[in-house]
């Protein structure tokens, strides 16, 4: 026995070494791409679909899609970048368009430039502009946040309104309808989180303005669109046609539970609206109401985000190739995510696809995608600048004062003062 082992020992050892190195080789070939994103009904599900498509053609590349809350993704990313160690960071991360320039400018060299690899001429220009810094383009454009007015046909019908009554209205008319709806059905017109300035952003951009001007300088006190937006939100609050919500999930609950008659937000909410099968056929989509100021339109944008590859990623080449193959070229992929998740992509060629022509049974057979696609083309382009988070908090800080009847000019001045203190 002893002799047996001794004579075979070199061979056994050799086998073991060979086996181990074989394992090491295959481990080195199998690449796993880690991705951070935040919405299980939307971008997480879409990224899993994209990953599955890529793995089919490249079996050696697998995907690990990690689902955090959006605030956690942003804060983990910022912490990781600030620490200067790449180990804690993913290979691909989803960044909301409002924050893109903030990351690009404050962490130079952290993201891989994709110009030269990706053909950006195929994408909506506003989207590419958001991710451009010093002539280099970073990131892969993803979804649009084109907005719409989702409404419950059944509630509005009870209150005596037809779908035609919801088309191309003003915000004042919207409030009147809201009062009627509450009187007749007992339902509130909309859910509203006083700690979220999303509605103010939607209204302001719909009239072609933003918290900042084209040069990125604060544009608050002389901003007619922002003033009208704040006045309108103040009217909504004092007319009490809203159900207050505390936080995102609470806000989503206002319409999934059937407590409110409308939702005004980005197209990416479609997946969440459709996640309630018992409400099928009860919803319709109209363009958002317009402000009564110069330049007012019925089209706006809320959010929208893009994929970015970390420069430090060990799988950088595969990650870029993956994004380019699926998000940059795969028209069929865009049709699938539109129908399944309501994702309106910003790859222009994808809009010629069949899915955009189709009627959606959930919305009573309306061709909602065609509508969103038309509105997308009308969204006024603005410069989000790099301080949207700060401005947003300054606005929400003033919403309670606004609801208590503080004159809107005083509110604008307070917002201006707060932003001035934050921008350094």
């Amino acid at each position, binding site marked *: 026995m002893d002799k047996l082992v001794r004579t075979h020992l070199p061979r056994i050892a050799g086998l073991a070494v060979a086996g181990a190195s074989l394992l090491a080789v295959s481990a080195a070939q199998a690449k796993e791409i880690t991705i951070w994103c935040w919405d299980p009904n939307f971008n997480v599900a879409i990224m899993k679909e994209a990953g599955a498509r890529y793995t089919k053609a490249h079996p050696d590349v697998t995907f690990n899609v990690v689902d955090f809350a959006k605030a956690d993704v942003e804060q983990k990313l910022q912490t990781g970048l600030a620490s200067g160690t790449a180990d804690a960071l993913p290979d691909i991360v989803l960044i909301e368009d409002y924050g893109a320039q903030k990351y690009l400018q404050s962490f130079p060299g952290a993201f891989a430039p994709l110009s030269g690899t990706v053909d950006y001429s195929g994408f909506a220009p506003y989207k590419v502009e958001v991710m451009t810094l010093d002539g280099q383009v970073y990131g892969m454009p993803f979804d649009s946040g084109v907005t719409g007015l989702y409404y419950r046909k059944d509630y509005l019908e009870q209150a005596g309104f037809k779908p035609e009554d919801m088309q191309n209205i003003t915000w004042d008319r919207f409030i009147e309808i809201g009062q009627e709806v509450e009187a007749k059905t007992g339902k509130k017109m909309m859910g509203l989180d006083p700690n979220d300035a999303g509605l103010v952003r939607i209204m302001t951009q719909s009239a072609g303005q933003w918290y900042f001007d084209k040069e990125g300088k604060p544009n608050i006190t002389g901003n007619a669109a922002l003033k009208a937006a704040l006045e309108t939100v103040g009217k909504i609050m004092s007319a009490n046609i809203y159900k*207050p919500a505390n936080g995102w999930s609470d806000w989503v609950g206002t319409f999934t539970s059937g407590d409110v008659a409308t939702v005004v937000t980005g197209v990416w909410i479609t997946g969440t609206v459709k996640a309630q099968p018992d409400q099928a056929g009860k919803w319709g989509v109209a363009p958002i109401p317009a402000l009564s100021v110069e330049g007012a339109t019925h089209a706006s944008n809320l959010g929208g985000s893009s994929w970015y590859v970390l420069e430090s990623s060990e799988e950088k080449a595969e990650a870029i190739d993956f994004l380019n193959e699926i998000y940059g070229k795969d028209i069929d992929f865009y049709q699938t995510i539109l129908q399944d998740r309501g994702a309106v992509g910003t790859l222009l060629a994808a809009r010629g696809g069949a899915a955009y022509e189709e009627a959606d049974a959930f919305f009573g057979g309306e061709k909602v995608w065609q509508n969103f696609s038309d509105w997308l083309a009308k969204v006024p382009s603005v410069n989000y600048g790099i301080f949207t988070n700060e401005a947003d908090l300054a606005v929400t800080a003033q919403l309670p004062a606004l609801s208590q009847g503080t004159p809107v000019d005083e509110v604008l001045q307070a917002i201006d003062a707060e932003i001035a203190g934050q921008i*350094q």
Partner: protein
Amino acid sequence: MAHPRRGGIGRYYDVNGWLFVAPALGLIAIFMVYPILWSLWMSFQSGRGMMMKFAGFANIVRLGNDPIFIKALTNTMTYFVVQVPIMILLALILASLLNNPRLIGRGLFRTAIFLPCVTSLVAYSVLFKGMFAPDGIVNSTLQAIGVIASPIPWLTNPFWAKTLVIIAITWRWTGYNMIFYLAALQNIDKSIYEVARIDGVPAWARFTHITIPLLKPVILFTTVISTIGTLQLFDEVYNLTEGKGGPSNATLTLSLYIYNLTFRYMPSFGYAATVSYVIVVLVALLASLQFFLARERDR
């Protein structure tokens, strides 16, 4: 084997002694001294994200012109001035009540009051958020017993949001302070109370003239600890308001502001470091003030 005993200054040159403490000293230097010095250096720099450059006292000047910093400072001081005295007094009263040997179920009560401070910060904040929701259990109970006519907007009104934070931290930390007082009360000689009782001193006077003076060192200790805790208040506000310190920045604390400056806004590490040194200075000042007020005076 006995070594001649070296006394005095000779001990400081004992290599073996230094070798024993060297690992601990090294860790302290890396994980405490270095970050403290580095953050002090950072507080003199400004810039966006990693693009920092030396800025002298610019950050300190910025403090004075920053309405949100002033707001956060005011809020933090409001919590401190309102909450700490309420909590200390409540803990004292509870401790003397629960120190009564004739009380049935003392152990149960003590455990019940101490339990909040071992629960998870996040769990209890989330629970409070649900309990104090517009249609939560607190509002519906208060309405049912007729105390209020319409629901209190706990999380959407600036005043009530602040009140809610104070209720939350009082609920969590009163039991913690109470345990210190209970331990100290056990050390007071029972005969003092007996004598007082024989002399006909009423219960309230026994509390104010015997219990409180004898507990003075412990009260000082808990006040300093609570001061530090309140000035660093973060978790409750973060979880109750989804990290925003709203409504209207009414619940924003200095710690939450530091967090926002670092991880939520355009990263401003230098300025965030300056704000954290404000907390350091405040804690130092308040603690020395408390030591000064509680000093033993020569009679």
